[in-house]
């Protein structure tokens, strides 16, 4: 599964990428600051997009399945729809949630940390270093 990680906050993106690359089933591509989201979507056709809610170009994700790229795989999952409280927290943490159709269930990402915070590393993935020392996620393909 190809994951596009779009977050201009290098520290947070680095930490999230570090967690994601620990999963061998995922190939993680990071969008560099200033790169337009619309072009990356067209070029990479990611299965999942993790997006900073505050990106002005986040609208490129909305309606993408119906409108801008009918053949593309559907976008992002993040939060269980049955859990509105969790969803609200994710929104407050500046993480968007979209319905994903056709992506295996049972996979649930952790909400990204609040701005400036260092995420708690999930058990078994080791400690995430503070200060953004994690290298950028590897490009895939």
């Amino acid at each position, binding site marked *: 599964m190809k994951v596009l990680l779009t977050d201009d906050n290098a520290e947070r993106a680095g930490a999230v990428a570090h967690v994601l690359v620990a999963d061998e089933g995922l190939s993680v591509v990071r969008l560099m600051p200033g790169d337009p989201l*619309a072009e990356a979507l067209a070029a990479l056709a990611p299965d999942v997009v993790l997006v900073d809610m505050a990106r002005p170009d986040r*609208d490129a994700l909305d309606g993408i399945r119906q*409108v801008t790229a009918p053949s593309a795989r559907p976008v992002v999952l993040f939060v269980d729809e049955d859990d509105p409280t969790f969803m609200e927290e994710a929104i407050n943490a500046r993480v968007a949630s979209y319905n994903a159709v056709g992506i295996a269930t049972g996979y649930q990402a952790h909400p990204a940390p609040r701005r400036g915070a260092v995420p708690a590393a999930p058990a078994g993935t080791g400690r995430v270093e503070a200060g953004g020392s994690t290298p950028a996620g590897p490009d895939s393909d």
Partner: protein
Amino acid sequence: MSKPILVGLLRLVDSAPLILAEADGLFAQQGIDVEIHIEPSWSNIADKLAYNILDAAVMLPPLALAACAGLRGPRTRLVVPMSLSQGGNAIVGNHAAANSLKADRSPPGIRLLEWLQAQQTRPRFAVVHAFSTHNLLLRYWLASGGADPDRDIETVVIPPEEVVAALAAGTISGFCAGAPWGDVAERENAGQILVGTSVIWPFHPEKCLCFSGAWSEANPELTHRLLRAVLQAQVRCDRSEEAARIAALLADPKRLNLPEEASRAALPGGEGQERIRFHTRDAWFPARTHALWFLGQMRRWGWLDERIDMAAVAAQVYRPDLLTSAVQAEGLYPAAGLPSLEGSAMLPMPNDEAFAPKLR
């Protein structure tokens, strides 16, 4: 007074009634405390309304309808008690497109098809959001000239303040965006306005004031007062003698920080090719026929499942009944009373005969 009413908007000229209502103390006169939140994207506005982080917002009508029809995630309960503006958008093409089309633009004729066929790759057109009046009117216009927007162009979504640079750089061949970006593109010689959207649909509804359904239901009195204040502000926004002052307010760095001259051009009495209307011609009336037109276009392009009852969605979202008491309090309607729900104040629709798309 307890918690303030949280109202979201984007940095656009169409947000003027909310900005003016705050600056002129119209909210305070109604005894309400309104906190304006400037959001970075339409998606942010839709998400925050859905999860009760905002109580109300300036909104794209097709996005409100799409959210309620479940086209962008879980079905959301939003209500639109009033329309906020009419017109103001422009379809802009690069110079090559404009020179090819010449005056053959409304509706576009054979020159549009010839230009499209001459392109080596599908020309890219940018819109501000998939579920926007801009996208639906651009597609409608293309189809009215016999083009198929799914086959003949590529649609990308780019924030409005970035479209002129993208056109100048050649990343896109054209765009449909709100004021002032069409005039800015011409001023910077990045391209030319092919057609203003008011030519496609005279007095077409543009932005609306959208409420979280849950909030509005729990706060009918606050809803009434907020609507009154915005109705008053719309009346002021439509006076050309107020335009210079409003443009200055919109340009205030502590407010929307918009380019003052370009904003002035888009306001009533301005020099822009497309201007926004806020109050006259019943710009405030949320006619369900408008909602049905937007939904009908979404169905036309295959985005809206046949099982979705368009009339039910329109009736659930467009709620002119919530506006009745505010309109009466403002004395905006004559003694004959409000128009029927389906809108005797309905605006002229595009002529479907003249604009009928050819079959593929």
